[in-house]
């Protein structure tokens, strides 16, 4: 069956360090992979999108990699800050009947400590 797996354990890191979050998937062949941030009581907010033929994408302190052989994406936040504390969701694009369906993982909670 199709699965998207993100670390269910919270990730605790010290301010200034690099946070690395993992997204693994099985039985999908996504053309795109997206990462979202979700704060408590709020809807997810789009961060980055990467195509299957892109190995890496960067935006300010964020970096995403996409390895279609390993079926894995890594999401990095460099020089992390307490304000980066949130849940991070990965989502795969799957085409159904010509339309994009976005399927989400359960998310990983990140806590950045001062």
């Amino acid at each position, binding site marked *: 069956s199709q699965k998207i797996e*993100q670390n269910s354990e919270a990730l605790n890191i010290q301010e200034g360090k690099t946070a690395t979050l993992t997204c693994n998937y099985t039985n999908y062949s996504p053309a*795109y992979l997206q990462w979202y941030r979700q704060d408590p009581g709020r809807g997810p907010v789009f961060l980055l999108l990467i195509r299957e033929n892109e190995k890496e994408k960067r935006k300010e302190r964020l970096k995403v990699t996409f390895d279609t052989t390993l079926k894995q994406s890594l999401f990095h936040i460099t020089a992390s800050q307490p304000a980066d504390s949130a849940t991070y969701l990965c989502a795969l694009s799957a085409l159904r009947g010509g339309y994009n369906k976005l399927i*989400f993982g359960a998310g990983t909670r990140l806590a950045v400590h001062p």
Partner: protein
Amino acid sequence: EAGVAQSPRYKIIEKRQSVAFWCNPISGHATLYWYQQILGQGPKLLIQFQNNGVVDDSQLPKDRFSAERLKGVDSTLKIQPAKLEDSAVYLCASSSTGTANSPLHFGNGTRLTVT
């Protein structure tokens, strides 16, 4: 641009009652989505509209859930009758084209508690 608007923010009902949620997407966005997010889980797609037509409702429990998108703009999601397991946050999202490289813009959701 104004974001996706949802109402109400919170709703508490008893099981077997009915409830309706409303969503106003970003102006001009063709694709509208309703997701259900149970505590500790990722959002699960319930239904996807392209303009005012349904393109995916494969995970919508159609015996109790219904949704419509009026004139390709606003949308309502209804549950009748509610069950305890429907307690969740209901998120509405929209995207400009619905293509794979079109990000979703989410509202802040309606938190439903069924007692």
